[in-house]
């Protein structure tokens, strides 16, 4: 190192229940530097930063911050020292105003009866200086994701943070918002702030970072200058092998033998509308998914994706429009009847939507088989059949577990998702709704999920893939459309002709109206 580092973390170790999350990581950040921390899910990036921010205590290792040793500190001390963190799950109180969120925990003048108007003026001044547009009086609940992120960054700048840690900040942003974020970070850098960027997106790192540290399996693999790095080199460092491109084109949709469903769409939505609640609704959403097709719905989270999925599942009743499974309307049918019509659902929210954490594997397997006479006869559960079924699923889907009687909460996220896939896909569903099915999974598990979906496509299922991850969509979908503020763009074929620029603009809502008119 030529310049003395602003931050030096040395040989940081941290284990959870005997499993090392950080295995002797060393890491430096200089003044006015944007340093990217690159790695897969589970590589130990967030753990390392939570240790720096004082949320976890390291098992061993040292942290030197601006020449002083940090240790045994909590977030409060970290903030006082000028270290601030924007978490992946925003740390905002939605029912409070922007201004109250920004000053939360500070003893402003006049404490405990601060002069709110004065604070608002200060906030506006600061926001002008960094080009961060926020309305101090607005309730956080009414803000978009991008706006909330700006509030988070303002929170740090208001506290005079010298080092900003951002955990996967672009995961929730449109391409346009992402550019905006990096302009702000450049301004921060220009004013002498350092930035640590936690991410797994190689393209961003190459475009915006000064230096890159790559983590893999809890250990540091390399630290290098961004200027000399290449995408291929970084991805090899990150995963330890060459990235395999998904084998989508093995069985093109057109060449598939048509099933008994004939030419009818497996899943069709006609002008589904849902009155907005808290700004999230659906406006005349139409699409159809043929058997043997993966139809992708792109877009940033919170634009009506969850609502659409819940309409398909039967958890919500659309205000108008028609839903058809295999050409037959499903109005008035609940989730149970729709499942009987061949619907399977794979959600990103394993803990709430997919599993009952207090149940064992066999019971979670049964959760999707309650109408299957092999497992339930005359209202009685055949426990032995459940154990056999779960055992088969464990073997077929390579679920790492001690056995079908283990509680699922003890499984890793990837293995939990494999169990859900096994349960949902083993019955050969005609329709699959996959909602961010690989979120939070490591590369291996992600590939596994994708392969299973492609398998089902080859077997003739109609797959609806809702995702905010463009790479996932481009790798899997036959056609895709963009959902923005409850409106769906026309569908585009996912082949060489796809205009990525246009998709990016649609995700930010630009061109949405014209597209809708044109169709």
């Amino acid at each position: 190192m030529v310049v003395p580092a602003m931050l030096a973390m040395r040989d940081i170790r941290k284990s959870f229940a005997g499993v090392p999350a950080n295995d002797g990581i060393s890491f430096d950040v200089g003044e006015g530097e944007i340093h990217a921390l690159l790695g897969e899910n589970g590589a130990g990036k967030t753990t390392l930063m939570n240790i720096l921010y004082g949320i976890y205590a390291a098992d061993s290792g040292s942290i030197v911050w601006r020449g002083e040793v940090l240790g045994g500190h909590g977030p409060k001390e970290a903030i006082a020292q000028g270290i601030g963190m924007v978490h992946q799950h925003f740390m905002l109180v939605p029912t409070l105003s922007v201004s109250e969120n920004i000053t939360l925990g500070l003893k402003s003048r006049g404490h405990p009866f601060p002069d709110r108007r004065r604070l608002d003026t200060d906030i506006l001044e600061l926001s002008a200086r960094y080009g961060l547009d926020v309305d101090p009086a607005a309730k956080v609940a009414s803000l978009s994701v991008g706006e909330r992120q700006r509030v988070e960054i303002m929170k740090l700048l208001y506290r005079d943070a010298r080092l900003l840690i951002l955990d996967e900040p672009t995961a929730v942003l449109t391409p346009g918002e992402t550019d905006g974020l990096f302009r702000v970070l450049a301004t921060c850098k220009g004013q002498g702030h350092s930035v640590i960027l936690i991410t797994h997106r190689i393209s961003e790192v190459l475009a915006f970072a000064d230096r890159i540290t790559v983590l893999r399996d809890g250990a540091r693999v390399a630290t290098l200058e961004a200027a000399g790095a290449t995408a291929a080199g970084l991805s090899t460092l990150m995963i330890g092998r060459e990235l395999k491109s998904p084998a989508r084109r093995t069985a093109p949709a057109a060449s598939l033998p048509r099933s008994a469903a004939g030419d009818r769409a497996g899943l069709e939505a006609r002008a589904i509308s849902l009155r907005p609640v808290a700004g999230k609704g659906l406006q005349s959403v139409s699409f159809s998914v043929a058997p043997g097709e993966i139809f992708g719905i792109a877009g940033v989270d919170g634009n009506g994706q969850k609502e659409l999925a819940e309409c398909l599942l039967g958890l919500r009743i659309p205000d108008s429009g028609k839903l058809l499974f295999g050409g037959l309307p499903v109005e008035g049918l609940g989730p149970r009847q729709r499942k009987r019509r061949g619907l399977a659902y794979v959600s990103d929210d394993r803990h709430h939507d997919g599993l009952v954490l207090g149940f064992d594997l066999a019971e979670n397997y049964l959760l999707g088989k309650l109408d299957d006479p092999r497992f339930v006869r005359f209202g009685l559960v055949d426990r032995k059949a459940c154990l056999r079924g779960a055992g088969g699923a464990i073997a077929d889907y390579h679920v790492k577990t001690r056995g079908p009687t283990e509680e699922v909460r003890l499984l890793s996220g990837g293995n939990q998702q494999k169990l859900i896939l096994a349960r949902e896909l083993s019955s050969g569903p005609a329709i699959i709704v996959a909602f961010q099915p690989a979120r939070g999974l490591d590369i291996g598990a992600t590939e596994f999920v994708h392969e299973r979906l492609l398998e089902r496509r080859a077997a003739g299922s109609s797959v609806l893939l809702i995702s905010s991850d463009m790479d996932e969509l481009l790798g899997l979908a036959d056609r895709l459309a963009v959902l923005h503020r409850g409106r769906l763009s026309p569908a585009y074929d996912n082949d060489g002709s796809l205009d990525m620029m246009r998709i990016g603009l649609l995700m930010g809502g630009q061109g949405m109206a014209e597209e809708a008119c044109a169709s």
Partner: protein
Amino acid sequence: MSDTQGFAALLGELSTFAAASVRMAAPLLIAGLGEAISETAGILNIGLEGIMLSGAFAAFIVAWATQNVWLGIMAGIAGGMLASLLHALLGVGRRADQTITGLALNFLASGLTSYFFLMAFGRTTSLPECPVLPAVEIPLLSSIPFFGPVLFSQNPFVYFAFVATGLVWLLFRRSEWGVILHAAGENPHAADSAGLDVIRTRYVAAAANGCFGGLAGASITLGTLGFFMENVTSGKGYIALVVVILGRRQPFGVALAALLLGAADALQFRMQTGNSGIPSQVFIMFPYLMTVIVLLFSIGKTRDPASLGIPFDRGRR
């Protein structure tokens, strides 16, 4: 002539009834304000009944022993705080289920107060009496027709309830402390990451709840009854929980809800005294029935704090 007399009599009736309603509302309001603070910070304390009972008993026994009402009130506050902090110790400190802890607290308070009452007095037919805080007529204001007797000729607990409503409003709406309580109940992880001590904030809220709840209990024994008997609070703690829900955890809302259910209680007493041959249970039942009916009107209008009843654990989300 007889018309005006009739009218005057009716007005008199009405003002007596309104005054009784306000008096009956006071314990509900005081306890409700405390619970509103607690719930805003994220602690659901079903043990409010136990807190009030502890307060009522401690206040009675000390006032009886020292013949000093003020010492009794202090003891009532201490008793309520002790009970509430026991709840917090488990529900905040040990992250136990707050509903079950609250229920257990009620059982314990009921058992302890009855045990010590019997220990002190045995099974007597004549209830031992303690001094009562007399009503204070506020000069000038108490001579306003109708409103004077209703609002300004009450016992000091009632005045405290009025003042406390305003103070809690100030706390919630104008102070940074209110923002902190709110953050602790809505998103404790956000409060934590902003450097606030969520656990301490919740303990403080629990202490405030105990203080108010104990005072509410004291207002029953030292404000109106002048004696203690087993389970003297007779479900008022639970009714206060409804008052909090109905008032949407806002001080003035809580006050209105308390007045409504206080009026139900006053009506019940009034009808019981009119000797009609109807079993008194018909009237005794009335406030509880009203509570359920009133609860029906809260449907869809309240939104609980997002972390209500969920113990804070930094390592978990």
